[in-house]
């Protein structure tokens, strides 16, 4: 019985034929460009990758099991640790699910107007911060160090804003069930305006520095093409799907919160025959992120120009006790659709919680994408699908 169960769970490792020219190399879990603790088992024929098997789980922290023993509000800080690059959006995704569950309760008045605006502000700022990190580390993966420092310089300004807003720089715990944790500090909106005025021209500078760099184009264009059908079959979402040409963004297609009030575009990948850019190649996945930063700036500008309504910042509740039932809610995090499935029995704790991670889906495509490419391309793929291992392993 025991032997049987272990045999079925036995993981398959790569085996080499005797006297073969191939070699098996372990890339990671400690490697400069596996973006955390991803481990790749590579079967290499010289520089050519015959097979790349991702091994995950090095950052597994039993988030879903923990959540079953915590009250809803206590789970929020745990979501911070999932995609720690975009913690605001993780908070938000979880809170959206709980709020949807609670909407069946007539006593729940819904999220106040002002809180929705604050959420959009925080969420879009965090989207910029997240894409900045993706841009910087991608440049470093391809071999350019300077974009990384530029990206961190600008991301620092956003972290500074968040520090003003909620006291934390990485794990915010800002968005709460029913609202947000605290109101704006004095002068915050001016700071945000100053930042976006500074930041908007920088995007073009980065495009000139990296996006249209000849070597960068050579390295990313036409590499590891994940076309629309493949992206959908793997469940890839976010920039990975949009890079393949599918115009799908939950903020537009299933607007949640107050996204239907803002005017913004959904950047998608484009074929540029002159440069050889193909839909769904590394370059398009990367370019979508660069364009999305501009759209986020647009949204933030509208929030600032429209003026925030006054009012409470969190819904008045005695306790977060959603009625029995189950819900699957998804939101557009920077790395794709973040889903939360929650089963409630009417108590203060969820019976079951499951997170659907966009990074996990994108990572699962790696094995197919990397076949037959070179070692350097593997790095380019990992950077372009932009994974955060905290979210993959949970």
């Amino acid at each position: 019985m025991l032997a049987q169960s272990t045999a079925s769970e036995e993981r398959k490792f790569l085996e080499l034929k005797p006297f073969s020219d191939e070699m098996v190399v372990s890339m990671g879990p400690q490697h400069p460009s596996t973006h955390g603790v991803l481990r790749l088992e590579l079967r290499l024929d010289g520089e050519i990758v015959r097979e790349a098997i991702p091994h995950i789980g090095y950052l597994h922290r039993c988030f879903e099991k923990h959540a079953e023993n915590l009250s809803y509000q206590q789970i929020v800080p745990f979501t911070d640790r999932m995609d720690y690059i975009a913690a605001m959006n993780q908070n938000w995704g979880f809170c959206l699910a709980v709020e949807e569950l609670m909407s069946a309760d007539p006593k729940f008045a819904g999220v106040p107007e002002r809180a929705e605006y604050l959420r959009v502000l925080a969420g879009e700022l965090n989207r910029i911060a997240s894409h900045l990190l993706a841009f910087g580390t991608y440049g470093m993966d391809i071999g350019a160090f300077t974009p990384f420092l530029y990206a961190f310089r600008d991301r620092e300004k956003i972290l500074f804003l968040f520090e003003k807003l909620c006291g934390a720089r990485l794990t915010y715990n800002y968005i709460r069930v029913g609202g947000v944790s605290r109101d704006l500090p004095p002068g915050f909106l001016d700071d945000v305006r100053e930042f976006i005025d500074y930041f908007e021209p920088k995007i073009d500078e980065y495009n000139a520095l990296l996006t249209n760099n000849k070597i960068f184009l050579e390295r990313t264009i036409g590499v590891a093409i994940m076309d629309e059908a493949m992206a959908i079959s793997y469940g890839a979402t976010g920039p990975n799907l949009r890079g393949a040409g599918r115009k799908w963004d939950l903020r537009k297609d299933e607007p949640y919160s107050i996204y239907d009030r803002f005017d913004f575009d959904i950047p998608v990948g484009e074929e540029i025959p002159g440069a050889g850019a193909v839909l769904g190649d590394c370059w398009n996945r990367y370019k979508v992120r660069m364009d999305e930063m501009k759209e986020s700036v647009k949204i933030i500008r509208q929030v600032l120009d429209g003026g925030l309504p006054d009012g409470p910042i969190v819904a008045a509740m005695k306790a977060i006790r959603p009625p029995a039932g189950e819900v699957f809610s998804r939101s557009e995090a920077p790395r794709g659709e973040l889903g939360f499935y929650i089963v409630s029995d009417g108590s203060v704790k969820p019976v079951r919680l499951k997170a659907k991670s966009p990074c996990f889906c994108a990572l699962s495509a790696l094995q197919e994408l990397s076949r037959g490419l070179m070692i350097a391309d593997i790095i380019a793929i990992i950077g372009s699908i932009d994974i955060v291992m905290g979210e993959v392993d949970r």
Partner: protein
Amino acid sequence: MVQQLSSQFLHLTSLLSVETVTPSEGSASGGNWAQAFASQFLGFLPGWIGLVLVMSVVAAVFVAVVPLVPLVLVLMERKVSAWIQDRVGPMRVGPWGLLQTLADGVKLIFKEDLIPPQADKFLFRFAPYLIFTCSFAVFAAIPFSQRILVSDLNIGIFYIISISSVVAIGVIIAGWSSNSKWSLFGAMRSAAQMVSYEIPIGLSILTVIMMAQTMSMEGIVAAQNGAFAEGEPIITLLGVEVKGTILDWMIFRSPFTFLAFFVYFLSSIAEVNRTPFDLPEAESELVAGFHTEYSGMRFAVFFIAEYANVFAVCAIAATLFLGGWQGIIDEDQFVPGLLIIFGKTFLLVFVMMWIRWTLPRLRVDQLMNLCWKYLIPISFFNILGTGIWGLFFREDSALSIGLSFLIISLFVVSILGIVFNSFGKLKPADQTALAGNIGAANLQKLKTTWNERHGQQK
């Protein structure tokens, strides 16, 4: 007595620092002065022992002084990169962080000397010495001024090429003996890269040799002084007669040497393994390449050798193409030659650093494509062109230099015009298309290869 001693001392210093061989006798052996010195002061010893002793002392001084160059370069790299990246760089050790490299060196010396248990211990220890020796031996043939040249070999540039290519062997030994897969990868990449890029380097240098008609480094420097030295001064600037000009430098002598300079410079970046050709030590791919397993002083030796190489290739470029230690104003030499060649070299080193901190890295196949499909054909074209140029202009004349300058400036202006006038006005997608410029045919090829690959899988 004192006078005698001091005169002897003067003689000694002059022997040490003055290269007595004039450019016209460029073929004479550089060992002359050492032999003279040995017979004069160590005459009581059998001849060859004295010679060996003298040479050892010179070598010791050399090995003690030349590492100062990497020391400066490392600091310069950190400061330049900080400047480019909007940082301040090292600031804590010494004023303006000037002693940072020294502090790093001290730290590395005190580190534990680790040798991986499965490593080939002898080769593991041997590799750093080999690389170190070869990188520093190059300096022996580089003329740093009229007076500072260890040895003016009649085949100076040939010696430099041959000795610097031994570095590749050291890299392979280091990678292989570490018994680590990543190190081996780095070593193999390095071997392929260095061997490939030595060809365009050699061919570019050949154009200079054809123009100068000598392989002696001193001779090449002298050849960049010849055109107007005999005749009337071209212009009189603030009372100074300008005879030899910047147009005498090899780079401006003919359009082909102009091209050759860029081919040489590009290839030498690859030769010293720096971005965009830093594949052997590609941090994001191979962790640290061939020196992954090295630590402490052995690692420092690699590091020093790397920067010594950077300096050497730039100094060679300055000597071959940019007039060496000669200034713009001929003969008078207001500024010592040492400062002039250091200025030229550091300018080139700065450009290398600028490139390093701006550009991403090529992939290994693109690296080979660049070398074999572009640089080597261009180099052959250069050699052919230089030959034809030499056929028409046997002696450098005002006509040849004027013509070459005209062609070069037209070339540069047209390229700058294309880049600055049209690029900014394009739409983003067209900018990408122009920058990428792979072409629609290539797109179709990419699609078909992709389909084939995916067809096979299914």
